[in-house]
């Protein structure tokens, strides 16, 4: 197992940490964060490739940096891939097996297995890796890391150049490797969907700081702060005030919107808070349908002001009547087509009390909301 204690890294102007983190053997940790957050730096520091400015990293209780890299038993897929330019595709993949003098027959079997899994039959015989396409390079680097059956697997955005089909297969495969073989995996990604799908612990890194560490549900429904919420594209964030604590333990909030929320936080009346809800959690109520009990609390009449299609779903931007607030919500494609919605149409939406999160706005005034049109 790997343990970072008060780890700090300085790279030029960039400061990372202090990070305290422990990655138990056999766990699957996803490191999620925006571009430039320091994910690669943290990963390399955890591998002992970067010298910490302070703190230390332990591998099974021993100082990581004190052990020769070849003894650390870490397979690394770097973001820049670092395929060996002088070796053929096959020799690149087999590199680890050769230098560790693994059984050649076993390595050949494993090679065949990886090649099939990664759809690399064509490129396998290529001598010159510079002729590979972007995604092929990434898959070769992944195969090279996986081949020697490592105990620790460090992956830096392993799927960034791959299409959804193969990405999904690989995600499944990685979970399987983790569960069935007990391989500890540290997986860096900027893709929250990937992080949620992988199912292990998620560490959210923003601006060089570990903002939150938790299961996908914890992070999905309860972002630790506004940076995390914004990064996770919680597009509906409002700055409200605690108005009343209801007898059932819920709170009533007032401001640009009047909301009831189920948050258990013990905030005194009068506190200014940030309240948010994910697009996916906003419910559009079909005109022909009765309103369910759980949707009654935060029910608003609204008007559609914008529509974006994404293939599988549409995102609607709606303006709440009698409030300056706009709200974004996602609608599955079939529902969108059924309803035949267009800009200007009137709809009813509900923000379920238990989907709302509440945060004291300690890291600065919350911005009203992010809109797609901001960019």
């Amino acid at each position, binding site marked *: 197992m790997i343990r970072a204690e008060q780890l700090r890294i300085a790279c030029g102007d960039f400061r990372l940490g202090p990070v305290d983190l422990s990655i138990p053997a056999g766990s699957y940790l996803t490191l999620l964060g925006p571009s430039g957050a320091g994910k690669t730096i943290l990963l390399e520091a955890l*591998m002992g*490739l970067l010298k910490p400015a302070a703190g230390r990293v332990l591998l099974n209780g021993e100082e990581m940096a004190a052990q*020769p*890299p*070849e003894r*650390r038993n*870490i*397979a*690394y897929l*770097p973001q*820049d891939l*670092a395929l*060996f*330019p*002088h070796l053929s595709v096959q020799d690149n993949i087999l*590199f*680890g097996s050769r*230098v*560790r003098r693994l059984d050649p027959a076993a390595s050949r079997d494993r090679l065949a297995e990886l090649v099939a899994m990664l759809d690399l039959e064509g490129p396998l015989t290529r*001598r010159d890796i510079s002729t590979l396409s972007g995604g092929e390079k990434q898959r070769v680097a992944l195969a*090279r890391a996986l081949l*020697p059956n490592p105990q620790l697997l460090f992956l830096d955005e392993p799927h960034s150049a791959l299409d959804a089909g193969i990405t999904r297969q690989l995600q499944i495969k990685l979970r399987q490797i983790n569960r069935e073989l007990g391989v500890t995996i540290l997986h860096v990604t900027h893709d929250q969907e990937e992080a949620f799908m992988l199912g292990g612990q998620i560490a959210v890194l923003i601006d060089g700081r570990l903002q939150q560490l938790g299961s996908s549900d914890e992070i999905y429904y309860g972002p630790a702060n506004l940076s995390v919420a914004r990064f996770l594209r919680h597009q509906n964030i409002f700055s409200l005030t605690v108005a009343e604590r209801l007898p059932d333990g819920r709170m009533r909030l007032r401001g640009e919107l009047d909301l009831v929320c189920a948050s258990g936080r013990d905030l005194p009346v009068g506190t200014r808070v940030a309240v948010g809800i994910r697009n996916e959690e906003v419910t559009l109520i079909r005109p022909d349908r009765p309103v369910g009990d759980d949707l009654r609390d935060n029910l608003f009449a609204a008007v559609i002001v914008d529509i974006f299609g994404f293939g599988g779903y549409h995102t609607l931007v709606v303006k709440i009547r009698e409030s300056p607030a706009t709200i974004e919500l996602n609608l599955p494609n079939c529902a969108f087509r059924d309803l035949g919605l267009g800009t200007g149409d009137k709809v009813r939406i509900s923000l379920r009390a238990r989907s709302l999160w509440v945060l004291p706005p300690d890291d600065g005034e919350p911005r009203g909301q992010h809109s797609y049109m901001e960019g």
Partner: protein
Amino acid sequence: MTPHHNRAFRLALVLPLGLLAGYFLLLLGGQAPYLNGSTLRAELSSSTLLDAIRLSLVSATIATLAALAFAVPAGYALARLNFPGKRLLDTLLDLPVVLTPVALGTLILMALNTPPGRFLHSLGLTLPFTVAGVIAAQFTVVVAMAVRMLKASFEEISPRYEQVARLLGCSAGGSFLRVTLPLARRGIIASFILCWARAIGEFGATVMVAGTARGQTATLPSSIYLAMSAADLSRAVVLILILILISFAVLFLVRLVGGRRP
């Protein structure tokens, strides 16, 4: 992509190259009037010529290989390690390039007169006027050049590859042998070619240290020099041609073999 060079740019590229080629051809062809069939025949049938050719080839090759054997680790150490005095050492390496080979030969002889030199002698390694001296002189002339070129080659190779290789299970030495060395292949071949060419043409230091005993320590260049200092131009021209042809043949072969992917 078709390069799409406009004519002025293409001319600016091709003209200097053409001029150089013309100049070098002129240098090669200017000898013709001094070439003399009977001297050529006489020289080709002389056994000392064969001796000189053999010695030249053998000594240049040994000296170059020895130089590379030092230069590969030394160049790598200079490229990757940091230690006090590194810059000074780097400057020291310019010594044999800056110095006229004759002067360098003199320095070698002087160094042999120092206690470490005499110690070497007491071990049975006699350099003055021996084949060992020929090789030592050529080695001295080319080794610094080799270190310099290999250092540059190694510096161009990102240490990233070694990092990744080591995580994949390579020891420090293994990652050097399996990754860095093959990646420096072009640089190594280039420095072999340059050093070998310089060694086979080397004469100042060689003559100073080893003399020009025919059949013993006389290389092709020292035979050329002897012919020239005996004012025997037609023999000199014959020998020059032979030196050029042999060297070109060897260097062409090295390129052919080295140019192939392993």
